[in-house]
């Protein structure tokens, strides 16, 4: 509803092509293709199933492939996405790939370690790691806040909600 357009927007310049969008189009085609392939591996339905198990997957997969092709065509014609705005978002700079990958790494570490170390430890690491990656340089405080949050949430779930989160390596300590 905010319809003020950029005053300096070039009116007649040749369309700027967002090449990354071809990647998304390819992803859609591949994903759709896989849905169709997966549907092809299904057996015929039981006698009481009027709708074949592969009917919807064929439609949905086919739709994804079609949308991928349409997106590629639209991209070539200069259709560009409106990346999402937000109060903490500054789209005037490019993507900060380093921060994103580090943050993703923190999340991956949490997934990999949680069953061994338990939430109380990985949760603290998750918070401290994410805060540090996002630019909070006071790492002592980051860890302190993380530990308080994770231990408190562990006990909060255990005592307050009666839900025992697996303690992992700290089993018996907490």
């Amino acid at each position, binding site marked *: 509803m905010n319809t003020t357009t950029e005053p300096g927007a070039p009116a007649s310049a040749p369309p700027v092509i967002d090449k990354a*969008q071809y990647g*998304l189009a390819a992803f859609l085609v591949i994903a759709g293709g896989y849905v169709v392939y997966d549907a092809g591996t299904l057996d015929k339905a039981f006698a009481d199933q009027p*709708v074949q198990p592969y009917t919807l997957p064929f439609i949905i997969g086919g739709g994804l492939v079609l949308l991928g092709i349409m997106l590629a065509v639209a991209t070539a014609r200069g259709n560009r996405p409106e990346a999402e705005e937000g109060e903490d*978002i500054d789209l005037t700079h490019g993507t900060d790939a380093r921060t994103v990958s580090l943050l993703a790494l923190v*999340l991956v570490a949490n997934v990999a370690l949680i069953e061994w170390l338990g939430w109380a430890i990985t949760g603290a690491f*998750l918070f401290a790691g994410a805060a540090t990656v996002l630019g*909070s340089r006071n790492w002592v405080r980051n860890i302190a806040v993380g530990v308080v949050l994770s231990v408190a949430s562990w006990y909060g779930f255990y005592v307050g909600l009666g839900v025992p989160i697996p303690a992992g390596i700290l089993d018996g300590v907490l």
Partner: protein
Amino acid sequence: MDLLLDGFATALTPENLLFATIGVLLGTAVGVLPGIGPAMTLALLLPVTYSVGADSAIIMFAGIYYGGMYGGSTTSILLNTPGESSSVITAIEGNKMAKAGRAAQALATAAIGSFVAGTIATVLLWIVTPQVADIVVTLGSPSYFALMVLALFAVTAVLGSSRLRGFIALFLGLAVGLVGTSTGQARLTFGEPLLADGIDIVVVAVALFAIGEALWVAAHMRRKPLEIIPVGQPWMSKEDWKRSWKPWLRGTAFGFPFGALPAGGAELPTFLSYATEKKLTKHPEEFGHGAIEGVAGPEAANNASAAGTLVPLLALGLPTTATAAIMLVALQGYGFQTGPTLMDDHPDLVWALLASLFVANTLLLIINLPMAPIWAKLLRIPRPYLYAGILFFASLGAYSVNFQAFDLALLLVLGVLGFFMRRFGIPVLPLIIGVILGPALEEQLTTALKISEGDVSTLWSEPVAVVVYAVMALLLVAMAVTGVRKPAAEEPSLSDTPGNNDDKELVER
């Protein structure tokens, strides 16, 4: 009526009042955080409600719901940063008012307007929902099927700026909804037994809203300090009251019917309300510079339409907004079969919810008007801690469902999807609705064809279904007509005006 009183009796026990208060506080606290809209608030706090009994959970949930809505409008007014598309309009005039030193009045008219609209809309819900439900139970599967297709179609094609991207989101959601063994055979499970039950919608929602948002913000963190307008106690002068009460009522009148349609949405009624107030106002010169009518009307419309979306949700099991989608998941999580039979099977539950909404709405006003300055302080949480905290609680919520690292991995994968959806401007709502309605659609189709013994013409054998398909055809024609003169994608502009720092504080982030 007895049912309603029973509902109130449930909602008003001291224990449940406590849960309602906790819900309102939690919902507002989370909802006021920048970058978190009402739907994300609900998704993040949903696991908390699972741990208490069903009726306490429902009233707590109602509190979170209204708290999240109110928190969202506070953020839009103070930061010009709508958390959801439905509060975009509130942000336009509300933020201008705040910048002109009238933040307290903007917050007050939003809060009281939400209360008025919420109260009227809740009463309308009491009247309308049972009647709609009575009609709905007479419908057969073909009509449900048609209504679901309409909801999917409307959410995807009518809302949002790019239809192509809307349909991309929808089909991705439908594909996610295929995962599992609901047909007796494993579909898209990649041989992973943990995927046999499908992908938990809470994981999908939390991943797309919370993880996707955090990753997206990490990629584009605003490095410059943010302006936050300090707020005192919200209050309104007699003049403000006089200028607000009519917009509140008109906004409610716009909001509820639009919300109640199975193709609802809050954008349209808030926009209509804004346009109407702009036309009717005696102070046209103030519009664009912080007119109180421009906050009062749209905010009431927003709240009334949010309540209106409960009509299709409770009577049909049909969610039309992200918030309603999470709510549907919540009801299913409490062990209730949603859909046309919900009102008959669990009248106690539905009425407890409807009464809870009323109680929560009232509590919200009592609690939040005095506490507005405190909530405003939450806007100053340093951004690294805010987003680290969002990741922390999102992971905790996803993990606490089954205690499986696998769910966290799924959360991350879908979070990365959420990141790229933001990058490519693909809306989240159609995906969520697709995940929920895809399997339901297949089920209704199966039921319909079972009864007709495979005769496809049964799909248009009911009058309601025929009408729904006609409406869709009309929408398609309308789209084709407007599509011809559809302008190129507009650049959304946030009117951050730096250099206007007299009455604002700079917050280090």
